[in-house]
């Protein structure tokens, strides 16, 4: 469904992504893991059109989407939940959801939008209780759920999730991962996930990629990655120079 071939990207003079190639099949949950600064977020931003791609191609369902503006990609079914719960704090939860459903409103009108919001409330019961509160007054976990719901309002085929567990209590992290798993199994949603919490993310994933200083060093099934020490090395840097001790 999603295919990246030799994607390169720079921040000024800094070469961040070096020939990143990866693919996500339809209905798959794929995780990218890696240390801080490995280029995980950049990869996601490159896919959703927020970060210019210096070289390489990105294909969505076989169509080249490299360089297509972010807002157009949303209409094509790509939803990006950025890091750090970027919701509109001074607006109510309900208004936030309406904003997320802009595409639905444009295409199907007000009634359908209401329907969609209702279905979001069904999935995220907490948000129904809080619908008239300012989004900024929600707890971290609730804000993350709101961010997720906003992305889902655009009825994506591909959901890009940037560190959904960041700064959340373990119980809420579990809840969020449960929801992601549910979305995949019930709606056949394709998910590309970025996580620091490698264990939790790999448990709900089909496959994973390990990113290290802008290069992919490992690609494998999730369960193989879980037991792979290379993953640890990707986080901690090289263990030692010699192969034996």
């Amino acid at each position, binding site marked *: 469904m999603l295919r990246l*071939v030799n994607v390169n990207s720079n921040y000024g003079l800094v070469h961040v992504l070096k020939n990143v190639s990866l693919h996500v099949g339809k209905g798959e949950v794929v995780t990218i893991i890696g240390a801080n600064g490995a280029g995980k977020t950049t990869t996601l931003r490159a896919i959703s059109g927020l970060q210019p791609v210096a070289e390489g191609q990105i294909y969505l369902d076989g169509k080249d989407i490299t360089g297509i503006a972010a807002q157009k990609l949303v209409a094509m079914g790509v939803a990006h939940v950025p890091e750090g719960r970027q919701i509109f704090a001074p607006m109510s939860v309900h208004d936030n959801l309406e904003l997320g459903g802009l595409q639905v409103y444009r295409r199907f009108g007000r009634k359908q939008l209401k329907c969609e919001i209702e279905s979001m409330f069904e999935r995220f019961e907490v948000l129904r209780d809080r619908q008239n509160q300012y989004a900024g007054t929600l707890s971290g976990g609730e804000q993350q759920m709101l961010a997720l719901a906003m992305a889902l309002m655009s009825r994506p085929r591909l959901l890009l999730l940037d560190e959904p567990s960041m700064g959340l209590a373990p119980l809420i992290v579990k809840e969020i991962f449960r929801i992601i798993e549910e979305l995949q199994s019930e709606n056949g949603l394709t998910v590309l996930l970025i996580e620091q919490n490698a264990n939790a993310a790999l448990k709900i994933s089909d496959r994973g990629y390990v990113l290290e200083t802008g290069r992919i060093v490992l690609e494998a099934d999730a369960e193989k990655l879980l037991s792979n020490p290379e993953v640890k090395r990707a986080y901690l840097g090289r263990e030692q120079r010699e*192969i034996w001790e």
Partner: protein
Amino acid sequence: MPFWKQEIECIDREELSQVQLEGLQATLNRVYKNVRHFRKIFREIDFVPEDLRSLDDLKRLPFLTRKDLGKNYPYDLFAVPLREVVRLHTTSFNFDEPIVIGFTRNDMINWTELTARNLFAMGVTKDDVLQVALNFGSMSGPFGFQAGAERIGASVIPMSGGKPAEQVKVMRDFKTTVLISTPTAALRLARAMEEMDVDPHALVLKLGVFGSEPWGESMRAEIESRLHIPAADTYGLTEAFVPGVAWECPAKNGLHLAEDHFIAEVIDPATGDVLPPGSEGELVITTISKEAFPLIRFKTGDITKIDEAPCSCGRTHCRISRIFSRCDDVMILRGVSITPDQIGRILARINGSAPVFQLVVERNDDADQLFVRIEISDRFFFDEMKKQRRFVEEVHKAVSEFLGWEVNVRLVESGTFDHNKQVLDMRRFV
């Protein structure tokens, strides 16, 4: 037609090239970071992993030879620390130039999966009883077959290379359905059955999986008619996986290479140029999933050709033709590879300097035989028969000890054989 993993075995070729590119890039990133040898040879040609943009760029990289593997003995080509290695194998007892191959836990999982895919494609199911009549220890193949068969859920009898009579008894009493052995061992079993008056029809044998020796279509026909089973060929590389590199599907039209784990090229062994699909040349293998012991453009020495046309069985992975010959002077006898250099070194040890000699390989109906012909020269002209005989006996003992089975040694007059032909393979693979 049954598939073990249909989504991989029948993958779209375009998707497959994406999988291969990803695997190759990740492998190169890892070896460049972790293996000194690759870092050095990549720097020599001014290559960094980022330069690999497509699978075609692989052609730029230098080859990896068995010599390179030997030079980096024991652990210098490992891409992971030794503590992550869970299995070590050595190449078929070349203790002169040993090579150590390591496997991580994930390598073992991949090996098992590939062998399971191999056996399943040949028709092995969980109801089968497999008799593995290969030597455990000196070969890694039997371990792979055992793991793969157990993954499918079949029962495994690790028989190792027992006496033919014992093998037949086990085959009859344990109701073996699948025989895994070398092709020559299968013929030995057929003879033992005739001697023991066991009718192959009375057995429940349904399939034979043979490998680790070159064998031709005539030998296949012979095995099939004498044991009354279909015989399937499988191909592996000790340096990668045995088995699990390539295997025959029921269409028996070449061996499907597991392209989601390996990239195959065929090169002209003389010039090193990559040949177009369909031309015959040396097989070069690059691994894209191995963690402990990755191979980048490894020259296998095996002569084959690649066929990318879709197979009637539905699998999309390319097929290599059956392998009968090599482009170097390595001989594969009784599942073990032998080079004339090794024999030469043994002769030199006995004699002080290596005499002119020729190795003749013949296949009698039950096994490969090795004849060492040593040319009589001035140095070797022993006027005393006793001395001469003792020399022959010493050579016979040393070489037989080295190989683990009896060889024939003969002194011949000069001019009996062509000095440029150190190996004379009389086996016919047709």
